[in-house]
């Protein structure tokens, strides 16, 4: 991974990002704006499942309203994230926070997609019933917490030394 990060840091795109100081903060700001869309969309779907908001809407309606911005914003974070990795390969790829974040991201995306398709498949049977199930409720709360964890780990990439020996980011 160190060699890959080394190679990546010499590519033209990486060198271009490194030369212009404004690119990284701009990417990070867009990244945060998109995270705002993701987290609030996840949050609104969660509130609907928990019965705390949107009770005049079906679960499928709620997915219809917040699913598309969620997916679009996820694509934006992946793109801005990829450019941040290219701009600072060692800081990201050798960081413990980064890989833990990627694992949680994979888990959260998987859960959301599976749950969404389950709701769509069973629209007529338990589009409403599911809301009363405590497993669905606890899974929902867990999903929101995982997304919060993803946000925290994203910020912790900048402070990877707090992980001690688990961090392989070279100290400068």
């Amino acid at each position, binding site marked *: 991974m160190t060699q890959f990060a080394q190679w990546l840091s010499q590519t033209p795109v990486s060198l271009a990002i490194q030369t212009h*100081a404004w690119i*990284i*903060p*701009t990417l*990070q*700001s867009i990244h*945060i*704006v998109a*995270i*705002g*869309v*993701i*987290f*609030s*969309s996840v*949050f*609104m779907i969660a*509130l609907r499942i928990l019965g705390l*908001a*949107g009770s*005049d*809407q079906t679960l499928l309606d709620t997915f219809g*309203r917040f699913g598309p*911005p969620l997916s679009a914003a996820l694509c934006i974070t992946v793109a801005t994230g990829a450019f941040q990795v290219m701009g600072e390969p060692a800081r990201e790829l050798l960081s413990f926070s980064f890989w833990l974040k990627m694992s949680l991201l994979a888990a959260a995306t998987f859960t959301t997609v599976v749950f969404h398709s389950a709701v769509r498949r069973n629209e007529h049977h338990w589009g409403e019933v599911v809301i009363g199930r405590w497993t669905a409720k606890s899974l929902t709360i867990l999903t929101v917490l995982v997304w*919060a964890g993803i*946000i*925290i780990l*994203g*910020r*912790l990439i*900048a*402070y990877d*030394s*707090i992980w001690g020996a688990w961090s392989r980011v070279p100290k400068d």
Partner: protein
Amino acid sequence: MITAFLAWLETSPPAEAIRTSGYLFAIIESFHVIGLVMVFGTITIVDLRLLGVASTRRPFTRVASDILKWTWLGFALAATTGSLLFITNAAVYSRNFYFRSKMVLLALSAVNMLIFNFTAARSVQRWDKDQAAPVAGRTVAVVSLVLWVTIIFCGRWIGFTTN
């Protein structure tokens, strides 16, 4: 007077504790991000409803009453954590251009909210179920979106200009 106050903030026990800890600043900053994405994300849903872009099949008041309490919760989290970050290096932050801009923009977004309360919100019964709010409401929504995105950019720039 202000200089003395900022110095007092910096030497206060919580400021000392956050500065000397190896991880407190990072954790507080992470929760600041959670608070601000909640504010921005939820206010965007309300603004898009005003503009007639999304959630248009639901009455505005319904959308607002579902969401705005979470916006305030997010704001409380962002303001608390933001203050804790500020006191660790108060003198430097208070002189920083992006910090100052961010505070002015936050004040403007409060003014924008007040304008909404004194204009479009007064007649909400008349347009509650319409596709979009009247022009005053739509203007407030656009101003709100621009302000909050700019606030996020300023916030990120503070971190790059105070080290």
